[in-house]
């Protein structure tokens, strides 16, 4: 996808190239410039080095940025752009009551769930209760995160099954004692055999394993109130089953202390029918939850992945802008290199300038000629840089997998994705650098006195 600005830039490039070959004079100058580049290969390479390095680094850095940004966006999209996540959060203890309560009562209620269901834009509600429990099987034990939820959970979280099946509505309805294990939980409890149809226990209750999830990357907690989640330790059971087996109070034992919580639902994932309803629905949800009769304290939090998507895009824009600035320093240095070589060329070719003037070249013909030479140099430099950059973008992920690269730089990040707009941008900038830094030498060349220039040895 190219935005109009970039398209305009491309058109401008075409116009410049078109102009360079349109009249006999400019065509000759272009051919001559190419010829002398070819004639002095090493010198041209050296003078173009700044431009080459500049454009190469723009392409590579922008592509790396694009790659990691795409990765972050994928991550956010996994949370679902049409989703709104409402979570229970434990409010801070209020110092007013000196009644020591062992039971922390807070969070989303089943009432909230049915209230949410009345919003017309909402297409799906996935409630869940999440609490840590020890899951046992014979002598082996796994500290699992038990997620009590309904069948739709798999869909909104885009979970993939390795074997068996996920929970279905019937499991919930019939309060079946079934569970689905995360990959790590499964491999700890069933290191050798297939867990399907086997039994695991939480407390005195036994659950039959009906499915095992595929290994899944943890979601990065990309800032905000959403914490990072590792799905591989999970154990999924039907919501109604959890209600029946655990009741509303859940005791959490950890390292000698214990806490009892009464939380109806830890999280409700609200899916709306269209992306444009996300924000209005978010406002409605917020209003519903702000009802002081239902939630006297703010014991809930709203996360809108769409917001984070936009944040990420803003970050990307900022990142591109910063990169552009660094790259422009490199191109500036490259431009000075070009100016240097062009000034040397003007001195070296004083006689040629004199001859051309004698044969009828106007001052502007000389300016054009030297400008074209500078533009050809920086343009070719830009092309070479773009070529190297594209090559690197494709070779880096392959190189990154090799063991010595891992030794040096650690595990490779997300693979770079070729940032196509930066190709156009860096080409246009290189040519622009040629114009800017070629202007002074070209002007100097044109102001030479023809007679003096002819006498020059």
């Amino acid at each position, binding site marked *: 996808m190219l935005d109009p600005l970039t398209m305009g830039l491309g058109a401008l490039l075409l116009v410049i190239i078109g102009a360079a070959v349109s009249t006999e004079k400019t065509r000759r100058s272009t051919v001559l410039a190419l010829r002398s580049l070819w004639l002095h290969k090493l010198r041209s390479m050296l003078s173009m080095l700044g431009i080459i390095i500049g454009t190469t680094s723009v392409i590579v850095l922008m592509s790396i940025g694009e790659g990691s940004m795409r990765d972050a966006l994928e991550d956010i999209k996994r949370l679902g752009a049409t989703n709104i996540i409402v979570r229970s959060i434990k409010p801070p203890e209020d110092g007013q009551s000196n009644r020591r309560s062992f039971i922390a009562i807070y969070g989303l209620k089943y009432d909230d769930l049915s209230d949410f269901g009345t919003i017309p834009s909402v297409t799906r509600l996935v409630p869940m209760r999440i609490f840590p429990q020890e899951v046992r099987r014979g002598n082996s034990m796994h500290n699992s995160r038990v997620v009590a939820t309904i069948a739709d959970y798999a869909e909104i979280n885009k979970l993939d099954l390795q074997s068996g099946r996920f929970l279905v509505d019937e499991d919930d309805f019939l309060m079946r004692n079934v569970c689905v294990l995360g990959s790590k939980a499964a491999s700890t409890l069933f290191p050798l055999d297939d867990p399907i149809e086997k039994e695991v226990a939480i407390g005195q209750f036994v659950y039959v394993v009906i499915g095992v999830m595929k290994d899944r990357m943890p979601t990065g907690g990309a800032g905000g109130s959403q914490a990072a989640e590792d799905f591989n330790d999970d154990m999924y059971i039907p919501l109604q089953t959890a209600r029946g087996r655990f009741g509303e109070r859940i005791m959490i034992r950890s390292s000698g202390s214990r806490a009892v919580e009464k939380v109806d639902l830890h999280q409700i994932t609200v899916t709306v029918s269209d992306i444009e309803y996300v924000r209005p629905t978010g406002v409605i949800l917020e209003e519903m939850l702000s009802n002081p009769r239902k939630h006297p304290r703010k014991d809930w939090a709203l996360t809108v992945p769409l917001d984070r998507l936009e944040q990420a895009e803003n970050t990307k824009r900022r990142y591109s802008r910063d990169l552009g600035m660094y790259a422009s320093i490199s191109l500036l240095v490259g431009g000075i290199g070009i100016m240097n070589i062009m000034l040397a060329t003007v001195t070296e070719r004083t006689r040629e300038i004199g001859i051309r003037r*004698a044969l*009828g070249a*106007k*001052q502007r013909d000389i300016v054009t000629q030297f400008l074209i030479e500078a533009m050809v140099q920086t343009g070719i430099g830009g092309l070479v840089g773009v070529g190297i950059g594209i090559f690197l973008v494709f070779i880096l992920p392959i190189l990154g997998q090799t063991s010595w690269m891992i030794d040096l730089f650690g595990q490779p990040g997300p693979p770079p994705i070729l940032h196509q707009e930066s190709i156009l941008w860096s080409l246009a900038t290189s040519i622009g650098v040629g114009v800017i830094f070629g202007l002074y030498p070209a002007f100097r060349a044109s102001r030479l006195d023809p007679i003096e220039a002819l006498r020059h040895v």
Partner: protein
Amino acid sequence: MAATILRVENLTKVYNLGGNPLPVLKGISLEVAEGDFVAMMGPSGSGKSTLLNILGCLDRPTSGAYYLGTEDVAGMSDDQLSDVRCRYLGFIFQQYNLLPQYTVVENIEVPLIYQGVRINEATKSRCESLAGLVGLGTRMDHRPMQLSGGQQQRVAIARSLSNSPSLILADEPTGNLDSATSVEIMGLLRTLNAMGKTIVMVTHENDIAAWSKRILRMRDGLIESDTINDPIPIPEGLRLIDPELLTSIPGGI
């Protein structure tokens, strides 16, 4: 009497060297008729090169008038002078002054390009014929570095003809050549003159000046003498230009 091709009246040129005015031309008046072959002679410092530069529109006089054809060139802008140079003038230099990056034919095309002419088959064949005219028909794709001095000078002559100039200006055209090659070059210029080309040449050698029809001697910025000369006839066996070739050049010379 043939039409006057150039006329200068009371031409002066004063250089400013570190605040001291240095008059180089002190009032030159001169007329050259169409078809003439003028040799300008004089010791160095006599102003003959300065005069040639002014006649070649490379320099402007401090005062005085210069009519090329009927146009007053003395007051023209730099751009206008450039136009005059590429339309009406042909240059031959002592140093040949070919463009080293170009082939023979490309060098011959240069004045046409600065006229803004589109290079097509017609202009190309004209330039190739001109290369043939000066005897370089087999070396059209060579670079100047691959040619001898005499050959380079012949390319320069072909180049000076490419725009069908009214006036050819030659600055010591044989200065860098041995005597045998000099004779060749002078024979060529003589032939062109015989075909009707007006030539103004600077030289300091008497036997080169002997090829011209008129000899101007300069001293201290003034014309000392202006004499009619009976030119050396073109030696037999030195007819570089085949008359048939001449008529076959597209666009004429």
